[in-house]
Protein backbone atom coordinates (compact mmCIF):
# COMPACT_ATOMS: atom_id res chain seq x y z
CA UNK A 1 0.00 0.00 0.00
CA UNK A 2 1.84 3.11 -1.20
CA UNK A 3 0.35 6.52 -1.71
CA UNK A 4 1.90 8.83 -4.31
CA UNK A 5 2.38 12.42 -3.20
CA UNK A 6 2.52 14.30 -6.49
CA UNK A 7 5.03 17.14 -6.60
CA UNK A 8 4.31 19.86 -9.16
CA UNK A 9 6.71 22.72 -9.90
CA UNK A 10 5.79 25.13 -7.11
CA UNK A 11 4.36 22.60 -4.63
CA UNK A 12 5.56 23.41 -1.11
CA UNK A 13 3.62 21.13 1.23
CA UNK A 14 4.85 17.76 0.00
CA UNK A 15 7.20 17.15 2.94
CA UNK A 16 4.59 17.87 5.59
CA UNK A 17 2.11 15.70 3.65
CA UNK A 18 4.62 12.83 3.69
CA UNK A 19 5.13 13.39 7.43
CA UNK A 20 1.37 13.39 8.09
CA UNK A 21 0.80 10.21 6.07
CA UNK A 22 3.72 8.50 7.82
CA UNK A 23 2.37 9.50 11.25
CA UNK A 24 -0.95 7.92 10.25
CA UNK A 25 0.81 4.71 9.24
CA UNK A 26 0.37 5.19 5.48
CA UNK A 27 3.33 4.24 3.28
CA UNK A 28 4.02 6.97 0.74
CA UNK A 29 6.57 8.56 -1.54
CA UNK A 30 6.97 11.68 -3.62
CA UNK A 31 6.33 11.33 -7.34
CA UNK A 32 7.39 14.12 -9.71
CA UNK A 33 4.93 15.68 -12.17
CA UNK A 34 7.12 14.49 -15.03
CA UNK A 35 6.83 10.82 -14.01
CA UNK A 36 6.02 8.41 -16.83
CA UNK A 37 4.82 5.78 -14.35
CA UNK A 38 1.39 4.36 -15.20
CA UNK A 39 0.43 4.77 -11.50
CA UNK A 40 -1.22 1.35 -11.34
CA UNK A 41 1.00 0.26 -8.44
CA UNK A 42 -0.08 3.13 -6.22
CA UNK A 43 -3.06 2.69 -3.92
CA UNK A 44 -3.87 6.37 -3.59
CA UNK A 45 -2.77 9.88 -4.53
CA UNK A 46 -2.24 13.05 -2.55
CA UNK A 47 -1.92 16.39 -4.34
CA UNK A 48 -0.24 18.71 -1.84
CA UNK A 49 -0.51 22.46 -1.33
CA UNK A 50 1.68 25.17 -2.77
CA UNK A 51 1.70 27.38 -5.83
CA UNK A 52 2.01 25.10 -8.84
CA UNK A 53 3.22 27.08 -11.85
CA UNK A 54 3.11 30.23 -9.70
CA UNK A 55 -0.71 30.25 -9.88
CA UNK A 56 -0.41 31.53 -13.45
CA UNK A 57 -3.78 32.44 -15.05
CA UNK A 58 -5.78 30.76 -12.21
CA UNK A 59 -4.50 28.74 -9.29
CA UNK A 60 -4.07 25.12 -10.33
CA UNK A 61 -5.21 25.49 -13.93
CA UNK A 62 -1.86 24.85 -15.65
CA UNK A 63 -1.12 21.75 -13.54
CA UNK A 64 -4.69 20.56 -14.15
CA UNK A 65 -4.02 20.38 -17.89
CA UNK A 66 -0.84 18.29 -17.62
CA UNK A 67 -0.92 14.78 -19.15
CA UNK A 68 -0.32 13.39 -15.63
CA UNK A 69 -3.79 14.52 -14.61
CA UNK A 70 -5.37 12.25 -17.22
CA UNK A 71 -3.72 9.32 -15.42
CA UNK A 72 -4.99 10.61 -12.07
CA UNK A 73 -8.50 10.86 -13.56
CA UNK A 74 -8.21 7.25 -14.71
CA UNK A 75 -7.14 6.16 -11.24
CA UNK A 76 -10.06 8.11 -9.72
CA UNK A 77 -12.46 6.26 -12.00
CA UNK A 78 -11.05 2.99 -10.64
CA UNK A 79 -12.15 4.14 -7.18
CA UNK A 80 -8.70 4.83 -5.74
CA UNK A 81 -8.60 7.49 -2.99
CA UNK A 82 -7.40 10.92 -4.11
CA UNK A 83 -6.95 13.82 -1.71
CA UNK A 84 -6.17 17.34 -2.89
CA UNK A 85 -5.15 19.86 -0.26
CA UNK A 86 -5.13 23.61 -0.97
CA UNK A 87 -3.39 23.94 -4.35
CA UNK A 88 -4.01 20.21 -4.80
CA UNK A 89 -7.73 20.90 -4.32
CA UNK A 90 -7.58 23.68 -6.91
CA UNK A 91 -5.91 21.27 -9.36
CA UNK A 92 -8.56 18.58 -8.76
CA UNK A 93 -11.37 21.06 -9.30
CA UNK A 94 -9.81 22.63 -12.41
CA UNK A 95 -9.09 19.24 -13.96
CA UNK A 96 -12.69 18.11 -13.55
CA UNK A 97 -11.92 15.19 -11.23
CA UNK A 98 -14.62 16.51 -8.89
CA UNK A 99 -17.16 17.36 -11.61
CA UNK A 100 -19.36 14.61 -12.92
CA UNK A 101 -20.18 15.77 -16.45
CA UNK A 102 -18.60 17.33 -19.50
CA UNK A 103 -18.55 20.83 -18.00
CA UNK A 104 -16.83 22.18 -14.94
CA UNK A 105 -19.46 22.33 -12.19
CA UNK A 106 -17.36 24.21 -9.66
CA UNK A 107 -14.39 26.50 -9.42
CA UNK A 108 -12.22 27.96 -6.69
CA UNK A 109 -11.83 31.71 -7.11
CA UNK A 110 -9.94 34.31 -5.10
CA UNK A 111 -10.94 35.17 -1.53
CA UNK A 112 -13.59 37.84 -1.16
CA UNK A 113 -15.55 39.47 1.64
CA UNK A 114 -18.35 41.97 1.09
CA UNK A 115 -17.79 41.94 -2.69
CA UNK A 116 -14.15 42.95 -2.45
CA UNK A 117 -11.01 40.80 -2.83
CA UNK A 118 -9.34 40.35 0.56
CA UNK A 119 -6.07 38.74 -0.45
CA UNK A 120 -4.29 35.91 1.28
CA UNK A 121 -5.78 34.40 4.45
CA UNK A 122 -3.52 32.65 6.95
CA UNK A 123 -5.34 31.73 10.16
CA UNK A 124 -6.89 28.98 12.22
CA UNK A 125 -10.48 28.04 11.51
CA UNK A 126 -12.94 25.25 12.20
CA UNK A 127 -14.60 22.74 9.91
CA UNK A 128 -17.55 20.39 10.21
CA UNK A 129 -18.19 17.52 7.80
CA UNK A 130 -21.60 17.10 6.17
CA UNK A 131 -22.78 13.71 4.91
CA UNK A 132 -19.40 12.42 6.10
CA UNK A 133 -20.28 8.79 5.48
CA UNK A 134 -20.39 9.38 1.70
CA UNK A 135 -16.69 10.24 1.41
CA UNK A 136 -13.95 7.84 2.43
CA UNK A 137 -11.71 10.61 3.80
CA UNK A 138 -14.52 11.96 5.98
CA UNK A 139 -15.95 8.65 7.12
CA UNK A 140 -13.74 8.67 10.26
CA UNK A 141 -15.81 11.65 11.45
CA UNK A 142 -19.43 12.29 12.34
CA UNK A 143 -21.43 15.24 11.04
CA UNK A 144 -21.21 16.80 14.52
CA UNK A 145 -17.43 16.78 14.84
CA UNK A 146 -15.64 20.13 14.89
CA UNK A 147 -12.13 20.10 13.41
CA UNK A 148 -9.68 22.92 14.16
CA UNK A 149 -7.52 23.46 11.09
CA UNK A 150 -5.01 25.83 9.53
CA UNK A 151 -6.27 27.94 6.64
CA UNK A 152 -3.65 29.28 4.27
CA UNK A 153 -4.74 30.42 0.81
CA UNK A 154 -5.41 33.39 -1.44
CA UNK A 155 -7.87 31.57 -3.70
CA UNK A 156 -10.25 29.41 -1.71
CA UNK A 157 -13.73 30.62 -2.57
CA UNK A 158 -15.81 27.79 -4.01
CA UNK A 159 -18.41 28.68 -6.62
CA UNK A 160 -20.88 26.02 -7.79
CA UNK A 161 -23.03 25.90 -10.88
CA UNK A 162 -25.77 24.03 -9.06
CA UNK A 163 -26.87 23.16 -5.55
CA UNK A 164 -24.65 22.49 -2.55
CA UNK A 165 -22.55 19.35 -3.12
CA UNK A 166 -23.74 16.15 -1.51
CA UNK A 167 -20.75 15.67 0.80
CA UNK A 168 -17.80 17.70 2.05
CA UNK A 169 -16.78 20.06 4.84
CA UNK A 170 -18.04 23.52 5.77
CA UNK A 171 -16.52 26.33 7.81
CA UNK A 172 -18.09 26.64 11.25
CA UNK A 173 -17.52 28.54 14.49
CA UNK A 174 -15.72 26.78 17.31
CA UNK A 175 -19.17 25.77 18.61
CA UNK A 176 -19.90 24.05 15.32
CA UNK A 177 -22.32 26.68 13.99
CA UNK A 178 -22.06 27.15 10.21
CA UNK A 179 -22.06 30.65 8.75
CA UNK A 180 -21.25 31.99 5.31
CA UNK A 181 -20.26 35.33 6.84
CA UNK A 182 -16.72 36.54 7.37
CA UNK A 183 -14.72 35.60 9.43
CA UNK A 184 -16.23 32.13 10.05
CA UNK A 185 -16.12 31.54 6.31
CA UNK A 186 -12.91 33.46 5.64
CA UNK A 187 -13.11 33.66 1.84
CA UNK A 188 -16.75 34.13 0.78
CA UNK A 189 -17.12 30.49 -0.29
CA UNK A 190 -20.62 29.46 -1.45
CA UNK A 191 -22.53 27.61 1.30
CA UNK A 192 -19.44 28.12 3.49
CA UNK A 193 -17.83 25.16 1.72
CA UNK A 194 -14.20 24.37 2.55
CA UNK A 195 -13.97 21.01 0.81
CA UNK A 196 -15.99 18.89 -1.61
CA UNK A 197 -16.31 15.23 -2.41
CA UNK A 198 -16.80 13.79 -5.85
CA UNK A 199 -20.00 11.86 -6.49
CA UNK A 200 -18.37 8.47 -5.92
CA UNK A 201 -16.90 9.51 -2.56
CA UNK A 202 -13.30 8.53 -3.27
CA UNK A 203 -11.98 12.04 -4.00
CA UNK A 204 -11.85 15.00 -1.64
CA UNK A 205 -10.69 18.51 -2.54
CA UNK A 206 -10.14 20.50 0.64
CA UNK A 207 -8.72 24.03 0.93
CA UNK A 208 -7.52 24.11 4.60
CA UNK A 209 -4.55 21.98 5.65
CA UNK A 210 -5.34 18.73 7.52
CA UNK A 211 -1.71 17.61 7.14
CA UNK A 212 -0.70 20.38 9.56
CA UNK A 213 -3.16 19.33 12.24
CA UNK A 214 -0.61 17.66 14.49
CA UNK A 215 0.81 21.12 15.20
CA UNK A 216 -0.09 22.32 18.70
CA UNK A 217 -3.31 24.32 18.87
CA UNK A 218 -2.95 27.99 19.80
CA UNK A 219 -3.54 28.59 23.50
CA UNK A 220 -6.50 30.86 22.70
CA UNK A 221 -8.30 28.00 20.93
CA UNK A 222 -7.45 25.47 23.66
CA UNK A 223 -8.70 27.80 26.39
CA UNK A 224 -11.90 28.73 24.55
CA UNK A 225 -12.63 25.08 23.72
CA UNK A 226 -12.18 24.09 27.36
CA UNK A 227 -14.39 26.95 28.52
CA UNK A 228 -17.16 25.92 26.10
CA UNK A 229 -16.82 22.22 26.80
CA UNK A 230 -15.97 21.52 23.18
CA UNK A 231 -14.24 18.29 22.22
CA UNK A 232 -12.27 19.27 19.13
CA UNK A 233 -11.31 16.46 16.74
CA UNK A 234 -7.92 16.21 15.02
CA UNK A 235 -8.32 16.67 11.24
CA UNK A 236 -5.34 14.38 10.60
CA UNK A 237 -7.81 11.48 10.74
CA UNK A 238 -8.66 12.45 7.14
CA UNK A 239 -5.52 10.57 6.14
CA UNK A 240 -7.17 7.33 7.29
CA UNK A 241 -9.13 7.51 4.05
CA UNK A 242 -6.06 6.07 2.37
CA UNK A 243 -6.16 2.99 4.60
CA UNK A 244 -9.64 1.64 3.93
CA UNK A 245 -10.04 -1.11 1.40
Amino acid at each position, binding site marked *: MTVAVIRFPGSNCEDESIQALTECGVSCRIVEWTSDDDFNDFTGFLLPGGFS*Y*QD*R*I*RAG*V*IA*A*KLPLMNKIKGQAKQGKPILGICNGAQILV*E*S*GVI*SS*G*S*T*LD*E*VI*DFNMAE*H*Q*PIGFVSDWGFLRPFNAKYNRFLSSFTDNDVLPIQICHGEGRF*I*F*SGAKPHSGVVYVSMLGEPSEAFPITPNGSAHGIAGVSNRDGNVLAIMPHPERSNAPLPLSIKTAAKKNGMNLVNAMALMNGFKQV
Partner: protein
Amino acid sequence: MIICTTLKQKDLAAVSAQKLMAQSENGPDIIRRYDYYSIAGDVAADQLISAVHAGGGFFNPNKHVLLSKKSQINENQVFFHVVRRTPINCLNYVRAINDWLKKPVVSHIFQSELWGFFYERPLMVAPNVNEVMVSTPNGIAPFAHPLIHQVSKISLNQIQFANEA
Protein backbone atom coordinates in the same frame (compact mmCIF):
# COMPACT_ATOMS: atom_id res chain seq x y z
CA MET B 1 -11.47 54.77 -21.48
CA ILE B 2 -9.23 51.81 -21.96
CA ILE B 3 -5.62 51.44 -20.93
CA CYS B 4 -3.67 48.21 -21.36
CA THR B 5 -0.39 47.13 -19.88
CA THR B 6 1.86 44.29 -20.87
CA LEU B 7 5.05 42.98 -19.33
CA LYS B 8 8.42 44.06 -20.72
CA GLN B 9 9.89 40.68 -19.89
CA LYS B 10 8.46 37.32 -20.90
CA ASP B 11 5.02 36.82 -19.41
CA LEU B 12 5.22 33.38 -17.82
CA ALA B 13 1.43 32.96 -17.82
CA ALA B 14 1.48 33.42 -21.58
CA VAL B 15 4.46 31.06 -21.92
CA SER B 16 2.68 28.32 -19.94
CA ALA B 17 -0.52 28.86 -21.89
CA GLN B 18 1.41 28.68 -25.15
CA LYS B 19 2.99 25.36 -24.15
CA LEU B 20 -0.43 23.95 -23.30
CA MET B 21 -2.06 25.24 -26.45
CA ALA B 22 0.68 23.72 -28.61
CA GLN B 23 -1.19 20.43 -28.07
CA SER B 24 -4.32 21.86 -29.67
CA GLU B 25 -4.93 21.81 -33.41
CA ASN B 26 -6.06 25.43 -33.39
CA GLY B 27 -3.39 26.51 -30.94
CA PRO B 28 -1.54 29.72 -31.78
CA ASP B 29 2.20 29.92 -32.36
CA ILE B 30 2.72 32.78 -29.93
CA ILE B 31 0.49 34.08 -27.14
CA ARG B 32 0.64 37.54 -25.60
CA ARG B 33 -1.22 38.67 -22.51
CA TYR B 34 -2.37 42.20 -21.82
CA ASP B 35 -3.97 43.56 -18.66
CA TYR B 36 -6.97 45.55 -19.77
CA TYR B 37 -8.25 48.38 -17.59
CA SER B 38 -11.60 49.93 -18.25
CA ILE B 39 -11.62 53.27 -16.48
CA ALA B 40 -14.73 55.38 -15.85
CA GLY B 41 -14.71 58.93 -14.58
CA ASP B 42 -14.75 62.59 -15.39
CA VAL B 43 -11.10 63.02 -16.28
CA ALA B 44 -9.11 64.01 -19.37
CA ALA B 45 -7.07 61.26 -21.02
CA ASP B 46 -3.71 63.02 -20.64
CA GLN B 47 -4.35 63.69 -16.93
CA LEU B 48 -5.35 60.09 -16.41
CA ILE B 49 -2.28 58.75 -18.16
CA SER B 50 -0.03 61.06 -16.14
CA ALA B 51 -1.67 59.77 -12.96
CA VAL B 52 -1.23 56.15 -14.05
CA HIS B 53 2.43 56.85 -14.87
CA ALA B 54 3.00 58.58 -11.57
CA GLY B 55 1.55 55.92 -9.31
CA GLY B 56 -1.76 54.56 -10.46
CA GLY B 57 -1.07 51.28 -8.73
CA PHE B 58 -1.29 48.99 -11.72
CA PHE B 59 1.62 50.32 -13.77
CA ASN B 60 5.31 50.03 -12.93
CA PRO B 61 7.55 51.62 -15.59
CA ASN B 62 10.33 49.15 -14.77
CA LYS B 63 8.08 46.15 -15.48
CA HIS B 64 5.31 47.24 -17.82
CA VAL B 65 4.66 48.89 -21.14
CA LEU B 66 1.67 51.22 -21.01
CA LEU B 67 -0.57 51.02 -24.07
CA SER B 68 -3.00 53.85 -24.55
CA LYS B 69 -3.48 53.84 -28.33
CA LYS B 70 -4.17 51.23 -30.98
CA SER B 71 -0.97 51.87 -32.92
CA GLN B 72 1.08 50.55 -29.97
CA ILE B 73 -0.30 47.03 -30.44
CA ASN B 74 0.53 44.63 -33.25
CA GLU B 75 -2.64 44.14 -35.30
CA ASN B 76 -1.71 40.68 -36.54
CA GLN B 77 -3.21 38.92 -33.59
CA VAL B 78 -6.54 37.32 -32.88
CA PHE B 79 -7.75 39.02 -29.68
CA PHE B 80 -9.88 37.44 -27.00
CA HIS B 81 -11.25 39.50 -24.15
CA VAL B 82 -11.81 37.61 -20.89
CA VAL B 83 -14.10 39.49 -18.50
CA ARG B 84 -15.42 38.49 -15.10
CA ARG B 85 -19.16 37.84 -15.08
CA THR B 86 -19.35 39.96 -11.93
CA PRO B 87 -16.89 42.80 -12.48
CA ILE B 88 -14.92 43.99 -9.49
CA ASN B 89 -14.19 47.68 -9.08
CA CYS B 90 -10.49 47.87 -8.19
CA LEU B 91 -10.93 50.38 -5.37
CA ASN B 92 -7.25 50.51 -4.47
CA TYR B 93 -6.41 51.68 -8.00
CA VAL B 94 -9.30 54.17 -8.00
CA ARG B 95 -8.04 55.56 -4.70
CA ALA B 96 -4.42 55.76 -5.91
CA ILE B 97 -5.34 57.69 -9.06
CA ASN B 98 -7.76 60.02 -7.28
CA ASP B 99 -5.16 60.70 -4.60
CA TRP B 100 -2.62 61.61 -7.24
CA LEU B 101 -5.09 63.84 -9.10
CA LYS B 102 -6.15 65.33 -5.73
CA LYS B 103 -9.84 65.05 -6.65
CA PRO B 104 -12.27 62.12 -6.78
CA VAL B 105 -12.77 62.07 -10.55
CA VAL B 106 -12.30 58.37 -11.28
CA SER B 107 -15.22 56.23 -10.15
CA HIS B 108 -14.50 52.76 -11.53
CA ILE B 109 -11.56 50.69 -12.73
CA PHE B 110 -12.46 47.24 -14.00
CA GLN B 111 -9.59 44.90 -14.73
CA SER B 112 -9.83 42.14 -17.32
CA GLU B 113 -7.51 40.23 -19.61
CA LEU B 114 -6.82 40.53 -23.29
CA TRP B 115 -5.13 37.56 -24.94
CA GLY B 116 -3.47 37.98 -28.30
CA PHE B 117 -2.93 34.87 -30.46
CA PHE B 118 -0.34 35.04 -33.24
CA TYR B 119 -0.64 32.48 -36.00
CA GLU B 120 2.35 32.02 -38.29
CA ARG B 121 0.37 29.71 -40.58
CA PRO B 122 -2.67 30.78 -42.56
CA LEU B 123 -5.88 29.90 -40.75
CA MET B 124 -8.45 27.87 -42.67
CA VAL B 125 -11.11 28.31 -40.00
CA ALA B 126 -11.27 31.09 -37.41
CA PRO B 127 -10.55 29.76 -33.91
CA ASN B 128 -13.67 28.92 -31.95
CA VAL B 129 -13.90 30.92 -28.73
CA ASN B 130 -15.24 28.02 -26.67
CA GLU B 131 -12.63 25.63 -27.98
CA VAL B 132 -9.52 27.77 -27.52
CA MET B 133 -10.49 29.86 -24.52
CA VAL B 134 -12.96 28.14 -22.18
CA SER B 135 -11.86 25.47 -19.69
CA THR B 136 -13.63 22.12 -19.71
CA PRO B 137 -12.76 18.81 -17.97
CA ASN B 138 -11.36 17.37 -21.20
CA GLY B 139 -10.21 20.51 -23.00
CA ILE B 140 -6.79 22.10 -22.88
CA ALA B 141 -7.74 25.81 -22.81
CA PRO B 142 -6.87 27.44 -19.49
CA PHE B 143 -7.92 31.06 -20.09
CA ALA B 144 -11.52 31.37 -18.91
CA HIS B 145 -13.65 29.40 -16.48
CA PRO B 146 -17.30 29.15 -17.54
CA LEU B 147 -18.52 29.95 -14.02
CA ILE B 148 -16.36 33.06 -13.62
CA HIS B 149 -15.68 34.51 -17.04
CA GLN B 150 -17.24 35.57 -20.29
CA VAL B 151 -15.09 35.58 -23.39
CA SER B 152 -15.48 37.44 -26.63
CA LYS B 153 -13.37 37.71 -29.73
CA ILE B 154 -12.68 41.38 -30.41
CA SER B 155 -10.77 43.52 -32.86
CA LEU B 156 -8.51 46.41 -31.97
CA ASN B 157 -10.99 48.81 -33.55
CA GLN B 158 -13.55 47.89 -30.91
CA ILE B 159 -11.28 49.05 -28.12
CA GLN B 160 -11.72 52.69 -27.17
CA PHE B 161 -8.20 53.50 -26.04
CA ALA B 162 -7.66 56.46 -23.71
CA ASN B 163 -5.63 58.43 -26.22
CA GLU B 164 -8.18 57.91 -28.95
CA ALA B 165 -11.38 58.52 -26.96
